[in-house]
């Protein structure tokens, strides 16, 4: 898991020019030495019911039941003019995020999902979705979904929430 987080951090760092900032983020939030990072083996997957009946909205990215949203917390960008991993016009993807693991309903794979806030517009206020699979208290900030995850964005003003696949859990 630490490797995945590291990859993610790297991937994010490649996408942004704020490298020095992110190096710091990495050290502070993600790196922190000997601390076990994710209680990953106890993550309850959204689609444990995959073999049986699937929730109605599991393939609908405007539904809180959408498979990628297993640990999303906020107003869904898909209801605000954005996509499941696209910010609405006028909002900027945060270079930082908390992470979760969601099982795809059909391929059965566990995907690492980065929950990146879109920042720089007033709160969207539509489709509030608060799911808590794998979500941890504030002292494990990188897994806390209640934080405004706009660190490194031009502003800390929260607009809406996305879910971006960053890889498959190995």
């Amino acid at each position: 898991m630490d490797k995945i987080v590291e990859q993610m951090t790297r991937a994010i760092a490649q996408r942004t020019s704020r490298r020095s900032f992110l190096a710091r983020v990495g050290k502070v939030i993600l790196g922190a030495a000997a601390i076990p990072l994710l209680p990953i083996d106890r993550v309850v997957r959204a689609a444990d019911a995959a073999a049986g009946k699937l929730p109605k909205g599991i393939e609908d990215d405007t539904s809180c039941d959408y498979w990628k949203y297993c640990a999303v917390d906020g107003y869904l960008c898909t209801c605000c003019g954005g996509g499941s991993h696209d910010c609405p016009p006028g909002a900027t993807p945060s270079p930082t995020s908390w992470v979760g693991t969601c099982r795809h309903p059909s391929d059965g794979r566990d995907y690492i999902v980065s929950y990146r806030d879109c920042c720089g517009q007033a709160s969207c206020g539509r489709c509030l979705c608060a799911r808590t699979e794998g979500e941890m208290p504030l002292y494990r900030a990188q897994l806390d979904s209640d934080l405004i995850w706009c660190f490194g964005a031009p502003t800390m003003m929260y607009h809406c929430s996305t879910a971006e696949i960053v890889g498959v859990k190995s």
Partner: protein
Amino acid sequence: MSTRVRSLVLLVAAILLVAAPRAQAQLPPDQMTSLALPEVGPGWIFVLDAGFPSTAAARVYIVDTGRLKVLGQVSGGYLSNFVLAPDHHEFYSVDTFYSRGWRGTRTDVVSIFDAKKLNFSGEVEIPPKRLLIVPKRDSASITPDGEFILVANMTPATSISVVDTKARKFVGEIETPGCVQAFPSGNRQFDSICADGSILTVQLDDSGKAKGKTTSKPFFDPGKDPVFDQPALVGSRAYFDSYYGNLYEVDLSGAEAKGAQPWSLITAADKAGKWRPGGWQTVAVEPKSGVLLVLMHQGGDWTHKQFGTEVWVYDLAQRQRVKRIKLKTQGYSIFATNADKPMLEVLDLQTSMQEGTGQLEAYNLTTGKFVGKLDELGSPFVIYGP
């Protein structure tokens, strides 16, 4: 890849997966971006959410009424107004901000946004005098050529602030004693409605300064049959409905406004049934079909803000009611669109302004049938069209 296409891909993938659950490649990593808007479409509307209960955080939802989908948002401030550039290249939010949210120094600005990316691109500071009211249409407006934005002030002395959109500069303030709002009636002309039932017409020069003012004869008697202050405007023609159910047409094209003889929207039987207009934005015109729409309810005197249960449709040429559309949910504001077909859009604040559960309902104007709705629009009061 648009959201829609991507959803389709996922759906197709999912269908394939059901057949062969482990055969396919894993989903690739997503690439996160910010979306941009297409050109403003004829079926778009702009829904102003007053932001109750806070009132200090207005927003405008940009809505595609064809898909009943929110396309984006323009963020505002304390009881903001919205203005759309006639050429659709910019959106404006006319805002009041306090430096510490609810306290501190007041600053009034026209905030400018790129209409594609919705990026904030600048602001023009105006005198901190703008009319602060539960948002109404025409408290801020723009000349048809897009040169000047007109912002209504009240201190409570009334005036209009003029902003040059090209120069992005405040041009000056025009006093309009006893008269309010700014109905744009020409590239260098706007009108305000006055306490005695008359209309003040103000002519502007090319720099946006007042060069002439004319007060019309009263076109209605505010003591007997007050008109609502949010008329339907088509070009330089204004359609005012009144508390007692009359329709006052006013020609704003000339240097002096000219009111026509009013006509009644209600029959003797309607009157007996206590039918009358009411709500917030109570009247609309759909020019292509030549129809006038009025939001109606049954109520006694002083029920002018009661939610409407029906929208009555009038043939403007014949001055005759041609249809009654029963609303699924009681409405507060109405608007007409005509992208592929004439449509009625109805805003509903539901049970309470405090709950932020306002919604939009769409009806086919030809058949009167309910088409669909869009909910979670906060406390929406006003609809603007492109």
